[in-house]
């Protein structure tokens, strides 16, 4: 498995790891094939993602994807964040081995679920 330097760097020093107390949205997704799991917490203010944290039970690519995604969406509006597809994550990481693309999908999915969760919670308010 050849990872790019960027992937390795994010794997070794992942940004925004952790949980957020009282988050505005949580996305919890698991990949049924490989068993990897990702959790994403978001804090939203005036439609802007003011804070984001993630945790993952996953391989190097999953950790790097989670880290990169959180960097990409932090400070963005919800609409802007929703445009961050797994492809953009992969590109930002300088590429992922083909077999590892699904890890970036996991990150994208976690984000979508978190935003969904946010809207659901909003609706309930």
């Amino acid at each position, binding site marked *: 498995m050849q990872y790019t330097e960027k992937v390795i760097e994010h794997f070794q020093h992942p940004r925004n790891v952790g949980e957020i107390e009282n988050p505005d949205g949580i996305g919890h997704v698991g990949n049924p094939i490989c*068993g990897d*799991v990702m959790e994403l917490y978001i804090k939203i203010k005036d439609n802007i993602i003011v804070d984001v944290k993630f945790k993952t*039970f*996953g*391989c190097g690519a999953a950790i790097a994807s989670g880290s990169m995604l959180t960097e990409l969406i932090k400070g963005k509006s919800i609409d802007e964040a929703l445009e961050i597809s797994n492809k953009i994550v992969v590109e930002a990481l300088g590429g992922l081995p083909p*077999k590892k693309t699904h890890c970036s999908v996991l990150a994208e999915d976690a984000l979508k679920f978190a935003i969904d969760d946010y809207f659901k919670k909003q609706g309930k308010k």
Partner: protein
Amino acid sequence: MKKIYLDHNATTPVHSEVIKEMLPYYRDIYGNASSFHQFGQQARKAVEEAREKVVDFIGAKSGEIIFTSGGTEADNFAIKGVAYANQTKGKHIITSSIEHHAVLNSCKYLEKQGFRITYLPVDKYGLINPEEVKKAIEDETILISIMHANNEMGTIEPIAEVGKIAKEKGVYFHIDAVQSAGKIPVEVKELNVDLLSLSGHKVYGPKGIGVLYIRKGTKIQPLIHGGHHEKNKRAGTENVPGIIGLAKAIEIARITVKEEAIRLTNLRNRLWTSINEKIEDVFLHGHPQERLPNTLNLSFEGVEGEAIILDLDMKGIAVSTGSACTSGTLEPSHVLKAMGVNPRLAQGAIRFSLGEDNTQEEIDYVADMLSGIVSRLRGISPFYQKKESKDLYKGA
């Protein structure tokens, strides 16, 4: 950076004496061993001497050793070769659910050709039960294929007992000794086996060379057809340097196997003790005693395996998730699954397989590094703080 190789079950460095022994066969004694002239006959002589070394190593007779391109080909040859040659007797084969893919996928291929395969279960230590082998034998059964020792967690199977049963019932018995050879004694008469696979690169010999032992009288069909090589059982110009190298490696192993087994058991146990002292919630896979001396397979609760491997790799330490051939795929280990290991633990399994070159300092260094790595990764994991039941081992 330090380089510490703890993946000897994947492959081993070639012993320097082995290289020395091989070298003359590239440019000096380079003849085709099937050639009539002296260039060929010199090569032939070396090949036959090498064959005798293999004969001695496993207690076979001359003429029962066929050279192949490796363990995978030997397994394919044994299983397909016996299956096709004996299909008029029956089309049933017994194997286990924890075999190497070379065996399993040969069996799966045969299933498509109308053979029936029984995949025996294993207990939580990865042991098959000889009684279940006995029960599985039918009139139609033509072959039993069980590995001597498992490559992922090292459990040593009760081969001699199965051999006795196979002999009583008159069913051919093949063992995959790719991982056991050179680590524990392997003796075909004692174990009552009819066919046995070996591979050069697992015993400090070269890659691309292996052996299938075929007991005299065993009905088998070639896998590779062509010229009259290897008693018409395996065609193709003999890989002379490979054969010489394999034989030399085996000759060395024969002398060192007992002492190395003790040394490696000690080192391996030291690694385990040290990890256990430094890291909480570690699970050992495989049989605690009936296990290869060099193999340690562990799961660290809450952490995925590849992440650990990558982190160790950054520090120059090579370990693996199990079989090298399934790394890079998404499949979890079929071996741990068959043992009933909780899937999330199975996904975190790390194989440390020690070898000749490893020292106590290396082992201590690895345990140190690992402790930091596991706690770092547990910090990223959503599963470690929210501690789930400790009884993970039983669930599935």
